[in-house]
């Protein structure tokens, strides 16, 4: 298992070069990356310097692009020699498609961190970009047992986030600049956003020239739980320290952190600069609440061919109004199932009338029918055929 990390300076590269398992560095140009700060010359310079230190420079192109934005970007990229980079990391499927057409020899690392939580999707991406795809970057919402399975079954190597901020929200709109005083706004704004309804958790919010991003207040951290993934053959583990960066450095203490991953990951987590968690690593139960959210109707299974009408309303002690769902003869019905699931017999004395007040012997589809009051029957009750 190899590590990689984002870099922004020669000092970062020097620190990375001291780590035996760190084979790759991620370069984020202003033009292409969500949090990119590097100019084009800086990105190329750092790529060259990375290679001199035995590190693979990977270009990060992780923004999503509308047609107009993408055309502007690929026009600029015509003047870049992308082959100076060992690989290119993309999130927008359109960017991956463009690379496959224009740079078929350049390995693609595809970010599939949102959605893509099933094997069919992941194998689908492998097939769509067959021949170009070097790696899939998987979601932190996939639990460990599934990550292990995917690492073993997928035909391309996989990467997951080992430590770093969890991205919650990505918008192309400028949402913070208007609210932050001008002297603090240098094209990269960071604030804490707290909502009372969210328990006043201070969620880091960042605005760059590519849009606005919201992160979880706790860092993702699985550096103390790597054994299973390593055995399964996970190829790469990303160490994202950008939020601790200062003065152009994006990988502070990366050398010490990498060393401690092997020697004492528990203490590393304990002393981490922010609270650290791994929310879905052991299990993802985000749909377990759905059955409670859904309609509590206990009688929906009665909505079949034997259900001929639905009660719409009524007046207690006076009458009930229902709508016919499918044609029936009055003689065919003798029970109502009420919303609690209880079945109530229709008294033989009950008469059925149409809106004009005329007694009827059968109901036609969508017809409104009125009966005498039947105790316990409420709106939503269903009339059943014998």
């Amino acid at each position, binding site marked *: 298992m190899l590590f990689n990390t984002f870099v922004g300076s020669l000092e970062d590269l020097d620190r990375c070069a001291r780590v035996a398992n760190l084979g790759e560095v991620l370069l984020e140009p202003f033009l292409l990356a969500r949090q990119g700060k590097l100019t084009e010359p800086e990105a190329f310079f750092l790529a060259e310097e990375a290679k001199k230190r035995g590190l693979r420079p990977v270009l990060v192109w992780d923004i*999503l692009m*509308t*047609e*107009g934005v*993408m055309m502007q970007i690929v026009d600029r990229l015509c003047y870049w020699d992308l082959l100076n980079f060992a690989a290119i990391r993309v999130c*927008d*499927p*359109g960017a991956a*498609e463009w690379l496959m057409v224009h740079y078929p020899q350049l390995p693609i690392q595809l970010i599939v961190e*949102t*959605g*893509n*939580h*099933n*094997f*069919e*999707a*992941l194998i689908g991406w492998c097939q*769509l970009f067959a021949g170009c795809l070097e790696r899939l970057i998987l979601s932190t*919402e996939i639990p460990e047992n599934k990550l292990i399975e995917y690492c073993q079954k997928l035909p391309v190597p996989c990467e997951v986030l080992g430590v770093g901020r969890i991205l*919650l*929200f*990505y918008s*192309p709109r*400028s949402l913070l600049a208007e*609210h932050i005083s001008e002297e603090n706004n240098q094209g990269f704004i960071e*604030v*804490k*956003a*707290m*909502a*009372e309804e*969210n328990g006043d958790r201070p969620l880091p*919010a960042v605005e760059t020239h590519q849009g606005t991003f*919201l992160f*979880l207040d706790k860092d993702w951290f699985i550096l103390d739980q790597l054994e299973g993934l390593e055995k399964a053959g996970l190829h790469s583990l990303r160490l994202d320290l950008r939020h601790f960066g200062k003065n152009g450095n994006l990988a502070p203490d990366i050398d010490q952190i990498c060393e401690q991953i092997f020697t004492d990951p528990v203490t590393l987590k304990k002393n981490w600069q922010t609270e650290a968690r791994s*929310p*879905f690593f052991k299990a*993802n139960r*985000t*749909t377990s*609440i*759905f059955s409670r959210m*859904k309609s509590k109707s206990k009688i929906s299974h009665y909505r*079949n061919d034997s259900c001929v009408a639905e009660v*719409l309303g*009524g007046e*207690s002690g*006076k*009458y009930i*109004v229902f709508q016919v769902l499918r044609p029936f003869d009055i003689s065919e019905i003798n029970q109502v199932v009420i919303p609690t699931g209880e079945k109530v017999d229709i008294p033989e004395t009950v008469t059925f*009338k149409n*809106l*004009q*007040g005329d007694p009827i012997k059968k109901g036609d589809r*969508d017809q*409104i029918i009125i009966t005498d009051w039947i105790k*316990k029957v*409420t*709106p939503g009750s269903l009339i059943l055929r014998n």
Partner: protein
Amino acid sequence: MWKPELLAPAKNLERLQVAITYGADAVYLGGQNYGLRARADNFSPEELQRGVTFAHQQGAKVYVTLNAFLHDEDFSEFGDYCQLLEQLNVDAVIVSDLGVMRVIKNCSNLKIHLSTQASCLNGYAARLWTRFGVDRLILGREVSIPEAGQIRAKFSAENPQKAPLEIEMFIHGAMCMAYSGHCTISNYTAGRDSNRGGCIQSCRLPYQLSSEASPITFMSSKDLWGIYQVGDFFKHHICSLKIEGRMKSSFYVAMTCKAYRRAIDAYSQGELTPELLQEIAADLQSIPHRDYFSGSLETAAGDGSVFEQAAGNNTGTHDYLGMVLDTTEEAIAIKLVEPLSVGDKVEFILPHSQPINYQVNRLFSVVGEEINCMRKDGIVCIPKVPKLAQVNQLHLLRLSPSKVEITAPYSMVTGS
């Protein structure tokens, strides 16, 4: 003249019927699983069958949303469900997840529309998805109409032998502030998967950005309306114009369908005048909504796209009163969502003509008792006077803005 399809949301069978009655060419709806509206009523197979039958009888289409991003364990009965949808003759399914698409293609011949949740934003992404075999692209809401036109034109230039690319765009409704499918606030803060139907709309909350400032709804988007861009959709041959809102009321569905139906038809006949546009816009203002804006339909949404009101929606200019259940020669039976009293001024909203203003002078129960008022959720009859001759089943009513608040509704209960 060619016209784009008007596509409306259907939370349930009633909404489906209302949408089609008020002019939708197609509806989209969710089954009981695999969609993004876990709290909606959603259609059982039996209801879906009724809905498809009704729609096809009226010449309308039905698309079923299967746009959740699924985990492996969600697939256990998925293939069977796809085959059921095919048997029920649904016209297409709306899908975000590549894995879901692959299973659909393997087990059915259902047409696939790529959901906006997949954030297809550019021509190369379109090329990828059509290479995979999707039949229609529902573009991300960040794409402008001219950009959509470029995507379509590019496809035609590269594939002269193929049919033109079907592109669907949103024309009306609530907007995600994030790129669709790229928001997981609910997942990590509430343990509910926003991409499997559990979004808790944290983006609508007020957030405090500094200790001194008051909380602001900095992530809450205004609502989209594309009423002033109808001609652009025609110009760029956007094949389907979609109204958002599977959780919204029948009133919303009826008013939006009627408004955009009028605009589309008038434009196709060269009759969409500024005066008519103003009238249609007023109808759209009548339903509950956040402040409207044109999203990114013309240029990328920027300053002024945030809805700054912290509490709920703006109130529209009118309140929804109820829906006509049935009519006879003498009476119109109405299911109410608000109380109604003798003396109230109401408007019957007809699908193809101006609303009929009517002051209620007599009210009857469904068994013919004359009454003075009826409570919210009750069923009531009014005389079918000649002025109301055109009123029919599924037509909606709204209260005239001047309605006096009822303080003492007739005391009734809905059951035992």
